[in-house]
């Protein structure tokens, strides 16, 4: 009889359905687990960022307090951030207590930032107390020998404001004390101070009679004027440009122009109005010669550093820095290099060659700063010093970030 079998089979569907339900639940749990892992990873990342920012906040506070008082020591307990559950603790370590072998007169600050989840990040900073490393571009022009002729002038502006507002902070400096290290012919001007080497002889900003052929370090002729003259307390150090190896490939750019990637090359020659286009990065050239209206164009707003070993001749060409920010184009002239600059309408650049010679002529307008061994300005050449270079020097010339009484040598996320 089937009746008992039906009774026994009654409810089998429910069992089968429950079994299928169980299998599907395992599938769902598998996918859910993947999502949960992703969520956990995101939360860990967030906590890590919070902890890192807490650690950096602790360092900022400690550095600020150390600048104000070198005897300041951070508290030995954790400090809670305002409006946050994160905390930080800064350890002041010197000598053998530091986890690294420290430079002379340096200390190590280790800041530990802790998120509310307990996850922590550390930032280590090495600082030097008491010493100051100034920007290498505190002066509009710095050289052993400077001569201004033919109505040449030096003034300043602030690139944060714009090149059309002229200022009078274009300081000129020389370590030399020899008479006539700086010569200013009639009709030339320097809208800023002139500082000479320790022991040099200084005169008036606008002398009543020419100081040419006197013992003064600065010789001013009729109708030449500047800001106040003074002597520096100590000589200014300008590290030499380290010699880099040039490449073997010469570039000969014709009228159709060429894009040049960062790298080391031999001689760069451009003729016939050709445009040499450079993008951000570091270049090394044996020499650069622009002829026949050729143009050297910096494309984009990434910094370009150009090392020149022998000769930089732009007397028949122009430089165009599209970003109009001098710190984005830096010419580094190696020892013995010679540069002939012509700016065209507006050349925004920094020229750094403490052992090189530079001549500027023919209506050159250079926006930036110049450091060289010998500088000659003729024919109405003008240098417009960017005051922002002193506040925010380009990385390759800035050295450690600095402030009164404290110098940060390095900053590391651990």
């Amino acid at each position, binding site marked *: 009889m089937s009746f008992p079998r039906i009774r026994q089979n009654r409810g089998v569907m*429910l069992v089968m359905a429950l079994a299928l339900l169980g299998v599907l639940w395992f599938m769902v749990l598998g996918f859910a687990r993947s999502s949960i892992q992703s969520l956990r990873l995101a939360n860990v990342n967030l906590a890590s960022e919070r902890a890192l920012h807490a650690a950096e906040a602790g360092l900022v506070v400690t550095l600020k307090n150390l600048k104000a008082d070198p005897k300041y020591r951070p508290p030995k307990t954790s400090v809670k951030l305002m409006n946050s559950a994160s905390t930080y603790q800064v350890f002041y370590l010197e000598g053998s207590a530091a986890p690294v072998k420290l430079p002379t007169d340096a200390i190590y600050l280790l800041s530990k930032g802790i998120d509310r989840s307990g996850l922590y990040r550390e930032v280590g900073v090495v600082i030097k107390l008491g010493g100051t490393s100034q920007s290498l571009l505190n002066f509009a022009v710095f050289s052993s020998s400077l001569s201004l002729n033919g109505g040449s002038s030096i003034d300043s502006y602030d690139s944060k404001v714009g090149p059309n507002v002229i200022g009078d902070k274009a300081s000129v400096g020389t370590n030399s004390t020899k008479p006539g290290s700086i010569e200013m012919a009639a009709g030339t001007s320097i809208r800023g101070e002139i500082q000479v080497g320790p022991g040099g002889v200084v005169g008036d900003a606008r002398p009543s009679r020419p100081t040419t052929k006197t013992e003064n370090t600065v010789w001013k002729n009729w109708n030449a004027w500047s800001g106040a003259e003074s002597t520096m307390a100590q000589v200014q150090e300008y590290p030499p440009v380290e010699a880099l190896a040039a490449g073997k490939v010469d570039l000969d750019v014709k009228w159709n122009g060429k894009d040049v990637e960062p790298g080391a090359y031999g001689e760069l020659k451009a003729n016939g109005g050709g445009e040499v286009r450079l993008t951000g990065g570091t270049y090394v050239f044996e020499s650069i010669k622009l002829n026949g209206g050729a143009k050297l164009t910096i494309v984009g707003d990434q910094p370009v550093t150009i090392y020149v070993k022998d000769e930089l001749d732009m007397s028949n060409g122009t430089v165009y820095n599209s970003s109009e920010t001098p710190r984005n184009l830096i010419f580094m002239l190696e020892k013995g290099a010679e540069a002939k600059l012509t700016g065209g309408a507006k050349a925004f650049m920094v020229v750094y060659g403490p052992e090189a010679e530079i001549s500027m002529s023919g209506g050159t307008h250079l926006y930036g700063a110049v450091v060289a061994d010998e500088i000659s300005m003729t024919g109405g050449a003008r240098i417009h010093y960017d005051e922002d270079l002193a506040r*925010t020097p380009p990385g390759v010339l800035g050295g450690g970030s600095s402030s009164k009484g404290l110098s940060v040598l390095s900053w590391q996320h651990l």
Partner: protein
Amino acid sequence: MNRPQGMTLMEVVVYCALLSLFSVMMFLTLPTRQNQATLALQEAAQEAAVALRKISQELANSSRSHVVTNKDPQSLVFLSAVPSDDREFAYFSDGAIAWTGWVAYLAQDGKLVRHWSPYSAPLAASKVGLPPSFQTRGGQAIVKSLSSISAAESAPKVWSVSLTVAADGSQIEMRTAVEVRNP
């Protein structure tokens, strides 16, 4: 008299409820073409997020005057003072950081490959010169489905790095900003 064969009302109700539940769950969880694409992209994005984090960490500890980007091949190259993440910097007696080599992230054959080129001895920043030319062999692939990598200095001391990954016809771009404090 024989009882008619069949199911009780409760059994039918329970069966219908479970059937509808199964149907909804199967609709949501069975692998479909769209879910496969989403999953593939999610995996690629996770890989890129981890890579971006590693790049951020290394770049933050580099020197801002020694960061080089190229377009062909796409690459980000920068100076490194540590060969691994968990070591502190070393210094020369004058305070200069002892740089130990160059790190390069190259886009190679649809992958993001990390190369490490160490110096034989640590050098100060003024002596490091230009980065070496990295070979296209070797290195460690850290992202397997890369479309592009790009980096640019978006603000003074701040570099913006972006990775674009692709999977199953879709692309996703991930970006981060890194402050490079060392000169």
